[in-house]
């Protein structure tokens, strides 16, 4: 039902509420560096803001227009590379161009490549489009390794963001200044992409997503609707790429490759494709996990993949979809009714996960992939993967936990159905 929350018509007073949301967002962006002022905090938040733009641009395709792309990093990466070259060119020629406008170069690059590749790939929708996007992604990814002058091979191309024209004393040396630059662009892009969903074009994208055939019989050329959406998604991905170039001062061939294309799909989908807030949630959450989990475990990408599969199987609306689903219950002030069932399921789920994760971590220690020997720490407890005790523990946690979890699921389902029914009755009165 999240799609309805997004497409449903709200009447008067919406404009004011919307402006309020943007003011709050701007205030959050402004205040957060004072809450998380550590170096890691700043770099993580910078990355999150970039990923928000990237994921929202991806959702213009997947969530809004129903186009599943496996090659969205092409526009992100090429945008980044052109910004790096532009920065180096501007520095070399001593042109009076401030750094703050450079993301536009990335946007234009993303748009131009969107026009070029979109004209080939958007002729067809559905599965064929998905495969073609993958092929184009590989084409550009592989070309990046061949054209070493432009892409710098595996080492990449570096730049220096402090050498451009300084305006009002900003040299963009400190990460805090870069953060604010990124936050500014993030806010602008979010507002622009949200506004786009509220235009006739945004609406017809949804129509093409739902039923391309019918869209043709109400006067729309679905091919050109897909094409425009594709170009605009390229534009915003290019801006995100440009900000990445400014943030890291380096781009390499991996930035246009399969990995970022896959990650943006994962974060958008896990966040939720049916809701404008979904990709924002996904970008923040996955970036956070990337930073936190990669410190805690070597196999964090495996957990990410498993999370993705679980979401595809059981929560196709993503996290935002799950939240939106609870809105009627929340409004009826009945959310507390669900707490016991949810807490039980969560507890058992965590027990199962702890057991499974322990087994996976130990399997990793025992395998050829590990270099650190069999001794390791799990939740700060020192363990040895070569001994039998932790394996028994893993099995004792995972197997009964899973069996009990399966038993509890119907209880959760019943609690949900009963609560929702009551919430609806309450509203009817």
């Amino acid at each position: 039902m999240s799609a309805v929350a997004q497409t449903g018509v709200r009447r008067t007073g919406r404009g004011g509420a919307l402006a309020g949301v943007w003011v709050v967002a701007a205030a959050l962006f402004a205040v957060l560096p004072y809450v998380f002022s550590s170096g890691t905090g700043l770099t993580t938040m910078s990355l999150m803001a970039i990923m928000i733009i990237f994921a929202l641009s991806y959702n213009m395709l997947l969530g809004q227009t129903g186009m599943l792309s496996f090659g969205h990093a092409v526009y992100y990466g090429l945008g980044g590379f052109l910004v790096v070259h532009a920065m180096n060119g501007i520095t070399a020629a001593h042109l009076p161009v401030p750094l703050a406008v450079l993301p536009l170069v990335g946007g234009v690059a993303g748009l131009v490549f969107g026009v070029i590749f979109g004209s080939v790939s958007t002729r067809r929708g559905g599965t064929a489009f998905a495969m073609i996007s993958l092929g184009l992604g590989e084409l550009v990814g592989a070309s990046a390794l061949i054209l070493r002058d432009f892409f710098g091979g595996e080492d990449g191309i570096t730049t220096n963001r402090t050498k451009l024209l300084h305006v009002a004393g900003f040299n963009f040396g400190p990460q805090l200044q870069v953060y604010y630059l990124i936050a500014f662009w993030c806010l602008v892009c979010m507002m622009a992409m949200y506004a786009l969903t509220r235009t006739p074009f945004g609406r017809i994208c949804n129509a093409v997503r739902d039923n391309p055939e019918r869209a043709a019989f109400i006067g729309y050329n679905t091919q050109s609707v897909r094409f425009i959406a594709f170009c605009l998604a390229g534009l915003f991905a290019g801006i995100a790429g440009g900000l990445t170039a400014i943030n890291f001062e380096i781009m390499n061939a991996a930035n246009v490759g399969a990995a970022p294309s896959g990650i943006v799909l994962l974060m958008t989908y896990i966040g939720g494709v049916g809701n404008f807030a979904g990709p924002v949630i996904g970008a923040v959450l996955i970036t956070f996990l990337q930073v936190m989990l990669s410190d805690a475990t070597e196999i964090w990408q495996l957990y990410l993949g498993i999370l993705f599969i679980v979401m595809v199987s059981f929560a196709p609306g993503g996290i935002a979809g799950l939240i939106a689903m609870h809105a009627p219950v929340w409004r009826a002030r009945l959310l507390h009714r669900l707490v016991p069932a949810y807490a039980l399921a969560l507890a058992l789920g965590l027990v199962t996960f702890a057991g499974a994760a322990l087994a996976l971590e130990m399997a990793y220690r025992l395998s050829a992939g590990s270099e650190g020997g069999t001794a390791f720490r799990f939740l700060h407890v020192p363990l040895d993967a070569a001994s039998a005790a932790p394996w028994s523990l893993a099995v004792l946690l995972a197997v009964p936990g899973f069996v009990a979890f399966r038993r509890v699921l119907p209880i959760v389902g019943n609690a949900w159905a009963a609560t929702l029914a009551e919430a609806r009755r309450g509203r009817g009165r």
Partner: protein
Amino acid sequence: MTVQALEIEALHKNFGRVPIIRGVDLAIAAGERHAVIGPNGAGKSTLFHLISGRFAPSSGHIRLHGADITGHAPYEINRRGLARSFQVTNIFPRLSVFENVRCAAMWAMGYRTSLWRAVDGLADLTARTEEVLEQINLIDRRDLPAGVLSYAEQRALEIGITIVGGGDVVLLDEPTAGMSRSETEHAVALIRKVTEGRTLVMVEHDMGVVFDLADRISVLVYGQIIASDTPERVRANPAVQEAYLGTAVAAPS
């Protein structure tokens, strides 16, 4: 001679080697309500698919207000003023009822794929959408996703999507299929109301509906039109009676 709203000339369509439409000629005047009837498998839906551009004909010509639209894409034909509904409900299931109708009105009202106008701020578009929602009696359902509507409501929405865009030639493919008697009566009144001043071409199995609504009837049998005339004369036509084995046509009075 005046230009016909819709003119079909020597139309043929083969699927592989199987001929489905075997030389159809038909002229429908502006403002006429025209019904196409015929036994199952006669090619009625195929004929509609050919007119509306879903299939390209194997040979022959189709003219809309005198302009050749043979083999054009569905969106081009729609932009020239032909709108159609589908036999199997064909709506936007995840969009709200309001959004379904509004999307269908956008191109015709000139908003097309505008990137710089807030769609909620377009007063004329909202007014037109609400007007049609009133006509099809779905104004109370406006914020529901179309996918959860009842069958009869979805059929009404199907008609709403078809007529909101202001196409002056309207093709309805079995608008009352699967409806109860009272629903059918309601639908007939609705169709009469919303196609006022337009050219209507409909495929229909319910002979009550056909004789109630149509000014003229064409009988399509095995890919050819065997009669095209006023309801009374079609009913009296021996060839038609033979095609129907004297069953359906005689029923309504």
